[in-house]
């Protein structure tokens, strides 16, 4: 049985994956980042006061994603 939290998270992830596919972007290999991206959102989902933590986590995540964009993988 999928726990509700997982199901909601899965739904969000699926929505973002779909958006990524629809955009037909050249950027590939960022799927694991999407998951982490959603995790950050869900972990801090209600806590306005805690946005600074979410932002630092996002900043780290973005720093990790940058090299992927700098040397995009080939579509093979």
């Amino acid at each position: 049985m999928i726990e509700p939290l997982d199901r909601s998270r899965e739904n969000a992830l699926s929505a973002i994956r779909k958006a990524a596919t629809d955009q037909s972007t050249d950027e590939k290999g960022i799927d694991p980042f999407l998951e982490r991206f959603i995790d950050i959102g869900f972990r801090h989902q209600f806590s306005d006061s805690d946005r600074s933590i979410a932002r630092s986590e996002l900043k780290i995540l973005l720093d990790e994603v940058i090299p992927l964009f700098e040397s995009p993988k080939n579509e093979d």
Partner: protein
Amino acid sequence: MKIKSITLENFGPYYGVQHIDLSTDSAAPIVLVYGENMRGKTSILRAIRWALYGKVLSHEGEELDSRGFANYDARDESSSVTVSVEIVFDENSSDVTLKRSYVLTQNDDQNRIVTQEQIFLKPANGPAMPTKDIPEAVAKILHSEVSDFFLFDGETLSDFETKLRSKESKSILVRGSIERILGLQSLQLLKKDLTYFQSIVATDLRRLAKQGQKNNQVLDKLNQLDESIKAKEADKANLSEILVAVKIAIAESEKKLAAVEEIRDSLIARNMYEVQLRVSKDKIKYIREQISDLLSLHWWVPLSPWIERKIVELDDTMETINSNNRKRIELEFLMSQLNSQSKVDICERCSQEISQIRRAEIDAELVNLKKELSDLGSEETDLNEIQQDRKSLKSLSPAVNARLRLADLDKDFGAESLDADQIQIKINALSEVIQGNPISITAEDKTLQENRLYAVQIERTIEEYERQLDLWKNEQRNLLKTLQDNSESNDPLRTHGKILDYFDSLLDGSLDHFRELMRQSVESEATSIFRQLSTEPEYDGVKITSKFLIELVDQQGRIMERPSAGAQQILAMSFIGALVRCAVRRGPMIMDTPFGRLDLGHRKSILGWVPTLGTQVILLVQSGEFDRDRDLGYLNNQVASEFVLERVSATRTMIVKRKAI
């Protein structure tokens, strides 16, 4: 997460320290708490909310004053009373204790103030958490945003039901509830965070662009846009402030007009009482006339008791006079005989000489008789007068019927006068209410209508501003993109910008899709619950339209335009159940008086379904909605324990555990 126990100290009607063990397991997830009205069921729900979030809202959305939670008896007994709620949670098979408390103290001005407010959260196998971290930890246990769906009362269900009946409020409620409980906010907040990062990149891009020459035109345009956006946002902020003030004024007018409704009711009531008073006074007048007529014919009737007494008195007097007269004659006769004896020497009867001793005896006897005669007083001469009086009094007829009639009239007069007095008291009280609220209904209504119109106009202007701001911000983004494109290809800022743009567009594209997935999830859960609960075969399931209108559909998928009242209730219940099942958090369900509005026909299926609602279901019920003998069986032996809220006094309730079942 489950609640293992709650300990209340001087909270609401719970005097002293009282404990409820709420342990449940998967085979028996239900705890039943029985309590009639005013016994403290809602206080238990409030205690949990207060312990978790430090505040409790009324049904009207107003925060309740926490001083009011202190038990009245405890408060009256001491100038300083501790109020606390302790909850032990089972979080991933480990105990976590949460305790919130304060001391209510009477200060020098005799006011009661809250002191020593404390909150304490401690996992069984770790140190107590710093106070500042507790709200976040509580949010992880059960966030206040979603708590409405887990800690809910009959009013919530009723509120849902009412809103689901109205097309206007339905869409907002359904969409808002789904987004709140399923976590759309998480994506919206991520979007906000990305905007924040984009603003940092934009600042850096502009700073760098200033160093070169080729971007001057773009920068000028951006600066112009900055100015315009700043000014427009300031205008928007001002208008928003005005809108808040106008909405407050609208709420006040509505409140006043609601009070006027009360005054109107008072006026109607007063008019009614005034009519009653007039009728009552007319009756009193009529009774008086009747009494007057009766007395003109039988003026003595009111004096009848006195007349009767007087006749008896006169009879007694006459009897005494006659008796005295008889005695007097007797005495005078005796005295004349003794006098005759004393004048002769020889006794006439026995012809013997009267001795000296006998003579002395006769003299002594004469003295006694004389004294006796003197004690009787002088002879009454007014006997005739008394007889005349008696005759006059006797001539007044007993007038039995007139007396009875007068007694009846007198009784009616008393009762009617009392009624009139009571009506007058009511009229006076209503007059005070009416005079205390001098308000012009027409003027207030006019103000209300004007303010409503004003609010609509402001809202439209704000919308217009927002559209303009969106256009400018879009233009700003495009210009920034130009700056980005103009920058060196290996510039890290360029990469940053591209990543942020990418995630931003991903989020834009996914929000609607995510909402659609949520809609489908809730629709499917609600349908499954509805089919389980409904006893009406014509309904096949629940549909949540793209506009977030929730509807009942038949087997052909057609929307049922006029569902029955029972079906509406089940729809509301199914919707809440679906939200809870789909929620991003799992928690205990605590339901206060949840079945009061549900019809008996559905009771069995609902009670059979309740255990599946959560990992733990605590039902606070009253006899009107849950008949233990009849309904306990429907819960399929899934009840872990039962408690009864027993009334000790108006201000005290005792929690008593029912014997094991």
